[in-house]
């Protein structure tokens, strides 16, 4: 069997494409969690982004409005979460679950009139360069702008957290809200901002799914990706660069599953579909076993409410 080198390039490119929504949502959630807030509503925010993007694209015809509108929708829906957890000091886990359940429901309600409508073609960049370099051509060129943004995001996030003053503030708020507050930092404001940012990234991830990856609206189309994104943040031990690696592994499992079916490997399809979830659990176990390591890398106040007494 001769394997076309460009075919391998195409497979890698398709793995990267399926990693895009995971990277976007995980990097957003990572910032939220770094500020000490655990938002389990990623799946809900993502599906809201998916329907908002698709609906705005269909109604306005503008891809730019649709993409930014989806991000805004993510921000709006995460505002509910921020208001509840930060202003009304509710439990993060329960509020996040409510957000996911609510998001799936409301997206299906809005999406009722958009089922079965074909999507639009999303423009890709550097299409012409695809065939210029063997193997690397299909990997590097011919993707949407969101794709390139997603692969830059972990590095931007890493730089932001390590090298910028605001990044330092976010980490301080997550690691020790009391001392941050004593230093005059408005903990609640920082956390609000981080939650809304996380919402915008989940919204973008959803829009990528409904506008670029599989350009159509299907009820519940995020299919658990939001939860995998959450798992990826733990997997990465809150390090954005490792999110990139984790997302590629998960994207890879998804894509390989298709190809194994195509070449007739006799493994039940359900087993292959279950693989990413099982791998997540295994990875979680492996990294959590070292309790010292996970304690060092976990934002100390993660999931704990902070309330300054009047």
């Amino acid at each position, binding site marked *: 069997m001769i394997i076309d080198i460009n075919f391998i390039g195409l497979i890698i490119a398709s793995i990267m494409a399926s990693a895009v929504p995971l990277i976007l949502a995980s990097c957003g959630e990572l910032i939220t969690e770094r500020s000490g807030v655990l938002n*389990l509503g990623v799946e*809900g925010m993502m599906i809201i982004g998916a329907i908002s993007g698709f609906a705005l694209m269909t109604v306005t015809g503008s891809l730019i409005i649709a993409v930014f509108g989806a991000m805004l929708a993510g921000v709006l829906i995460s505002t*509910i979460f921020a208001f*509840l957890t930060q202003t*009304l*000091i*509710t*439990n993060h*886990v*329960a*509020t996040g*679950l*409510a*957000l*996911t*359940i*609510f*998001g*799936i*429901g*409301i*997206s*299906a*309600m809005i*999406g*009722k009139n958009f089922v079965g409508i074909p999507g639009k073609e999303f423009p890709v960049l550097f299409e012409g360069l695809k065939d210029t370099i063997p193997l690397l051509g299909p990997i590097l060129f011919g993707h949407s702008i969101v794709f390139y943004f997603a692969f830059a995001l972990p590095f931007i996030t890493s730089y932001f957290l390590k090298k910028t003053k605001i990044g330092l503030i976010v980490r301080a708020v997550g690691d020790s809200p009391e001392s941050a507050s004593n230093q005059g930092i408005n903990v609640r404001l920082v956390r609000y901002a981080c939650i809304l940012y996380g919402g915008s990234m989940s919204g973008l991830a959803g829009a990528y799914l409904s506008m670029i990856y599989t350009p159509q609206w299907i*009820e519940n189309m995020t299919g*658990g990706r939001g*939860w995998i994104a*959450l*798992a990826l943040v*733990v997997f990465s031990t809150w390090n954005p660069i490792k999110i990139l690696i984790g997302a590629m592994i998960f994207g890879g499992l998804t894509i390989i599953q298709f190809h194994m079916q195509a070449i007739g490997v006799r493994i*039940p399809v*359900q*087993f292959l*579909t*279950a693989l990413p*979830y*099982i791998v*997540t*659990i295994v990875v*979680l*176990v492996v990294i*959590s*076993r070292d*309790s010292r390591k*996970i304690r060092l890398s976990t934002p100390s106040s993660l999931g704990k409410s902070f309330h300054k*007494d*009047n």
Partner: protein
Amino acid sequence: MIKIVKRDQPSRAIFFLTPILAIFLTLVAGGLIFYILGFKPFEALKFFFIVPIADKYGFSELLLKATPLCLIAIGLSFCFKSNNWNIGAEGQLTFGAIVSGGVALLFYEQEGFYILPIVILAGAIGGMLYASIPAILKTYFNTNEILVSLMLVYVSKLILDYLVVGPWSNPEGFNFPETRQFSDSARLPLLFEGLRIHAGIFLALAAVVISWFVFYKTYLGFQMKVSGFSLKTAKYAGYKGKKMIILVFLISGACAGLAGVGEITGPIGQLHREVSPDYGFTAIIVAFLGRLHPVGIIFASLVVAITYLGAETAQIFMQIPKYTGQVFQGMILFFLLASDYLLFFKFKFISSKK
């Protein structure tokens, strides 16, 4: 002028009143959403909350849906009281259904009084086995139980899918994704002619009574409460934390597994692809709305069960998508959590005159 003042102590009256406030606010907000989407709000709410339970059949359906919700929520309240976040009850339900369904299929075309108890027990054991995974990983490997229990939900549904499409599918079933019909002896009896409500409701009621007893009359219940308030205090008091984590997971797994038994051995009588319309997730809301109190959970399960029925009725009569049920479920939890604020803070009216 209105000022927000912290209460000296959380108010107990408000603790039990806020769920009612949350339901009321959900109805108002739901009406508003219907209005925005172009439906007549009162008519929609009527189809959602009154029409479905207006007759005998509807009421039986309400109990049918409330039964698994109540059963699972009771189990979850053991976990939540002791600060264990088992959110994978849906998976434990599914796995319980798989195990009990498998056992029921072993007794295919056999009759005998002993079959049903074995089938029920198998379901409880299945749920416990599945719940023991996040519990053991949490206690011995320090792994986050939220993510593990959740990932296992997807895995369990895929196992079920594999079985009903593949090895367990009905050989005479024209490739429908379902198993053979269980024998009558493997099925929970229906309570009334022509209605679908079945004996599973007694399992739920038993769970309510037992949990009430454990929570309020035993040392274990006290330990759970203390651990829920503060893990440090629990450790200081010398409670065996690991043992308790595993125990509460096993209890909630068993309850979810039993709910799974009810779903397949009741009116349906076979395993098929979708044993549960996310009862396992919805039960989390039920547990909170019921304030983790056994009696509260009974009422909460009835209220939330209406959202299931209402969604179906509204879909038929008004072409409102059935996912609307989840909108209501999410909103109830939002409003409930929000109104908890009133537990700890109160509004004080101060006259603006100086």
